[in-house]
C-alpha cells in the first residue's frame, strides 16, 4: 500500500524540519524516499503535517483505570456515542472505555500511548485492556519501587541482583520501563502511614526513599533501558513540595553522564510552594531554574484543565488525603508486596483559588523551562483532566491571549500566587511538535516513532490549519479546533481518521523490553525469587508470568544490558 502526502507544511523536529513544504511518501507501513505513480494521494496543501503524537504518560489501561470506571457510572452515562459499522459504542468522559480511548486518541492525531503505572501482579489485566484499545501502539511501565523483592535487594546493597530481577520482571510481564511512585511511602501505606522526606526510614527494610531512587537509577544504567526511571515524587500534592521535587532530581545528579537519567512526571502536582493550602504559591520558577541548569532531568507537565477529572495514582496515601480534603468517594486497592492505588473523583473549578494556582503552575513550568526537548505535554490523564483537552493546553502555550482570557475567569487571588501573568513566551508549532511527539519518542528511545524520516513507522497526523497564514497567538481557538479533529491520521501507513471520523479500525502493537542477561545470573536470582514468592505472594511464580501469546500483537524489543 502506497501513500503520498503532498504539499503539506511538515514539522519534524528530530530531523530538524521546521514548517517546510514537502511531500511524505509511505510504503508498506513505513516512510520511504519515494513511491510509484499508483500511490494514493492525500492533498495536504495548506495543512500542517506532523508525526503521530506520542503520549509518554497516561492512565489508559489496567486495574486502577477499570476501578475508576466501575466507581463512576455517573461519568459515563452522559458521554455516549452509538456504535457504527466501523466503531464500537463509545462511552465515558474522564474514564472512557478501551475502544473510546483508542478512537479519541486517533482523532487527536496520536498514535502511540504508554500506560503510566501497572502493578506487576495485575499487569496481565493491563495487557488484556491494552489488547482492546484500538489503533494506537502501546506499552506500560511497571511500578517497582515499593516491590518487596526490589527493596530486599536494594537494602542489602545487591544492585546486580536487583538489576537481574528487574530485567527478568520486565521480560516476564512485558513492561517497558521502571516506574517509581512515592518510593517508601506506598510501602508504609500498607500500615496506613507515609513518608515525608527522602531520608525517612522505611521499616523493616532499612532503606530510605533516596536510596530507593538512587538504587533504581543505577539499575536502569546497568540494564541500559530505553527510558529513564519515571518518577512520581514523594509528597505529591502537598504545599511546599517543590523542595522535595528538586531534592529528588538532585538525588541522582552525580549518577548522570551527560544524558537524562531521571524523569519526573506530572510536575505540576509536585510544584507547590507555600506551607498550607491558604498560603499556596507556585513553585514553578524554582523548579524551572533547576531543570534549566541540570540536563540530567526530563519532566512532563500534568497540566490542569478546568472541569471534571478522576484522580487515580499508585500513591495510596495521597489519594486518601485527597478524599479527606474533598469528601468525595474514595477507592483504595493495595497490591500485595508491590504497591497501592487510589481513585477519587475531582472537579477543577476556576473560582477555586487552589485549582487556579494549580492551573497556573503547569503553564509556568512549560513556559519557563527553556529546552522543549526535556519537557512533555501531559494532563496525567485523567488526573488533571482528560487527554481530549490537549488542544486546549496547546492553545494556552501558543497564545498569551488565550491565557489572559482564562485568567480573567479564574479566582482573583490566584494571580498573585504565581508568575504566569508576567510571561509572554508563546510556543511555536515546531516546539509543540517537540513536546508532543519528537521529545517523547526520543525520551522513550523509540527509533521509529516521533519523526518522519525514511525508515520511521508511517504514523502521521495532518491538521486542517495553515501554519504559514494563521497567527496562533490571536487565532488560538482555530488552532484548538483543528488539533481536536485531525484532517487525517495515518497509522502504519493506513488512513484511520478522516475529518475527525474513524474510517478504519484495527489493533496496534504492544511493545515491551527484553533485557539480555546471562542464564546463570537469571537462574541464581530466580531461585531466590521463587523462595520469596512463597512467603510474600498468594500466587505461584509460574502463574505470575505472562505469556507472549496473551498479547494481541506483541512487539518485543531486545535491550543489550551492561551487566
Amino acid at each position, binding site marked *: 500500500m502506497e501513500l503520498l502526502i503532498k504539499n503539506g507544511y511538515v514539522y519534524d523536529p528530530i530531523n530538524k524540519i521546521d514548517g517546510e513544504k514537502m511531500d511524505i511518501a509511505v510504503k508498506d507501513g513505513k516512510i520511504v524516499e519515494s513511491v510509484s505513480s499508483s500511490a494514493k494521494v492525500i492533498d495536504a496543501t495548506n495543512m500542517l503535517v506532523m508525526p503521530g503524537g506520542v503520549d509518554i504518560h497516561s492512565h489508559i489501561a489496567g486495574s486502577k483505570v477499570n476501578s475508576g470506571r466501575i*466507581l*463512576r*457510572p*455517573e*461519568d459515563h*452515562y452522559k458521554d455516549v456515542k452509538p456504535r457504527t459499522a466501523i466503531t464500537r459504542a463509545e462511552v465515558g468522559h474522564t474514564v472512557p472505555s478501551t475502544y473510546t480511548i483508542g478512537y479519541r486518541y486517533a482523532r487527536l492525531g496520536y498514535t502511540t500511548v504508554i500506560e503510566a503505572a501497572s502493578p506487576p501482579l495485575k499487569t496481565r489485566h493491563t495487557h488484556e485492556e491494552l489488547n482492546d484499545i484500538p489503533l494506537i501502539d502501546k506499552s506500560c511501565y511497571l511500578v517497582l519501587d515499593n516491590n518487596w523483592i526490589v527493596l530486599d535487594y536494594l537494602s542489602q546493597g545487591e544492585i546486580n541482583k536487583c538489576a537481574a530481577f528487574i530485567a527478568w520482571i520486565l521480560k516476564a510481564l512485558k513492561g517497558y520501563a521502571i516506574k517509581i511512585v512515592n518510593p517508601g511511602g506506598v510501602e508504609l501505606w500498607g500500615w496506613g502511614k507515609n513518608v515525608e522526606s527522602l531520608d525517612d526510614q522505611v521499616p523493616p527494610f532499612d532503606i530510605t526513599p533516596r536510596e530507593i531512587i538512587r538504587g533504581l537509577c543505577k539499575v536502569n544504567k546497568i540494564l541500559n533501558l530505553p527510558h529513564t526511571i519515571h518518577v512520581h515524587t514523594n509528597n505529591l500534592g502537598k504545599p511546599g513540595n517543590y523542595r522535595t521535587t528538586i531534592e529528588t532530581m538532585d538525588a541522582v545528579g552525580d549518577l548522570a553522564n551527560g544524558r537524562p537519567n531521571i524523569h519526573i512526571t506530572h510536575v505540576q502536582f509536585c510544584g507547590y510552594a507555600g506551607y498550607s493550602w491558604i498560603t499556596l504559591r507556585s513553585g514553578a520558577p524554582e523548579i524551572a531554574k533547576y531543570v534549566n541548569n541540570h540536563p540530567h532531568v526530563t519532566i512532563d507537565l500534568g497540566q490542569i484543565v478546568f472541569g471534571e477529572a478522576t484522580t487515580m495514582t499508585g500513591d495510596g496515601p495521597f489519594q486518601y488525603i485527597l478524599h479527606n480534603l474533598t469528601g468525595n468517594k474514595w477507592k483504595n486497592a493495595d497490591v500485595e508486596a508491590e504497591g497501592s492505588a487510589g481513585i477519587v473523583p475531582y472537579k477543577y473549578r476556576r473560582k477555586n483559588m487552589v485549582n487556579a494556582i494549580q492551573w497556573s503552575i503547569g503553564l509556568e513550568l512549560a513556559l519557563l523551562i527553556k529546552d522543549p526537548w526535556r519537557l512533555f505535554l501531559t494532563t496525567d490523564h485523567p488526573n488533571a483532566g482528560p487527554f481530549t483537552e490537549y488542544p486546549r493546553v496547546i492553545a494556552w502555550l501558543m497564545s498569551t491571549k488565550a491565557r489572559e482570557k482564562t485568567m480573567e475567569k479564574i479566582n482573583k487571588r490566584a494571580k498573585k500566587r504565581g508568575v504566569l501573568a508576567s510571561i509572554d513566551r508563546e510556543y511555536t508549532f515546531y516546539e509543540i511538535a517537540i513536546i508532543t511527539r519528537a521529545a517523547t519518542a526520543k525520551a522513550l528511545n523509540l527509533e521509529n516513532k516521533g519523526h518522519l524520516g525514511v525508515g520511521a513507522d508511517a504514523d502521521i497526523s495532518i491538521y486542517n490549519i495553515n501554519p504559514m497564514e494563521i497567527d496562533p497567538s490571536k487565532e488560538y481557538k482555530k488552532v484548538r479546533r483543528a488539533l481536536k479533529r485531525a484532517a487525517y491520521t495515518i497509522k502504519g501507513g493506513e488512513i484511520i481518521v478522516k475529518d475527525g471520523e474513524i474510517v478504519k479500525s484495527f489493533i496496534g502493537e504492544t511493545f515491551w523490553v527484553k533485557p539480555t542477561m546471562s542464564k546463570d545470573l537469571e537462574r541464581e536470582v530466580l531461585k531466590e525469587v521463587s523462595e520469596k514468592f512463597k512467603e510474600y505472594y498468594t500466587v505461584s511464580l509460574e502463574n505470575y508470568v505472562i505469556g507472549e501469546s496473551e498479547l494481541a500483537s506483541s512487539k518485543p524489543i531486545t535491550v543489550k544490558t551492561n551487566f
Partner: protein
Amino acid sequence: MGEVTLKPKVIFKVPIIAETITPDNFARKSIEEIAKLEVWEGNRKVTLGELFEIAGTPGETPTDTKIIIEGDVRKVRRIGYKMTDGQILIKGPVGMYLGEKMEGGKIIVEGDADSWVGTGMKGGQIEIKGNAGDYIGAPYRGDTKGMKKGTIIIHGNAGNEIGCWMRGGTIIVKGNVGAFPGIHMKKGTILVEGDCAGRCGAMMKGGKIAVLGHIPSILPRFTFDEIKKSFKLKKEKIKGPFYLFTGDLNENGAGKLYVSIEKNKHLQFYEKYLE
C-alpha cells in the same frame, strides 16, 4: 388548552423509551408530525404513530398543551422527559423514569407508577394516584445530586429510598413507604402519612422528614432532641405530637426527623433523654 390523546394500539412487550412524549415536543405540531416523532421499541426506532392512536390538537406552546394517555403504558419509559411546562394525564399504569429531569408543568397518573419517578427533577409537579416504586426523585447511579425542586405526591404506597440525595423540593406519600426514605438527603421535605419500613434518614445531612405512621426503630446515630407539637410543610402545619430527632451524626448531619408519638409507643424510652 390544546389536548392530544394517545391510545396504545399494540400490546407493549419490550421496553418503550418515549422521551419525545412531552408538551414541549407536541406543541405547535400537527398530528401527522406528532405521529412521526421517534421512540425506541426495544432495539428498534419506531414512530409514535406506529404505537399509538393519536388524536386532538396541541397548544401553541408547551404551557397550553395537555397530553392524555389512555391505557396501560407500564412498559413506556421517560414520559415527560425534560418537560418545561404543560400537562400530562396518564389514565393507566406508567413505566420508569416518569418526568425525568422535569423542569415545570404537571404530570398526573391515574394508576401505579414504576421506579425512578421524577429522577433528576428540577421543578414542576408529579401526582400518582396509585402506588409508586423505588428511588423517587433519586439521581443517576453514582451521582450525588438528587431532586432539586418541585413536588411529587404519591397517593398510594411507595418503595425504598424515596428522596435519595434530595436537595430541594417536596415529596408526599399518603400511603406507606419502604426503607431508607431520605437517604443522603441534603435539603427538602419528605412527608410520609403512612408507615415506614425503617432506616429513615440514613446518611442525611439536612432537610426534614416526617413519618405520621409506624416506624420500627430510629437509626443509632440520630439523637433525640425534643417533643414537637407540629410539623411544618410549606404553609401547612401538620398536627403531631412528634418526637424530633437530629442526624445523621455519622455524617455531621443536621437533618430533622419527626416521628409520630401516637403510632410509635415503642419509642417512648427516648423520653428519658428529655431534661
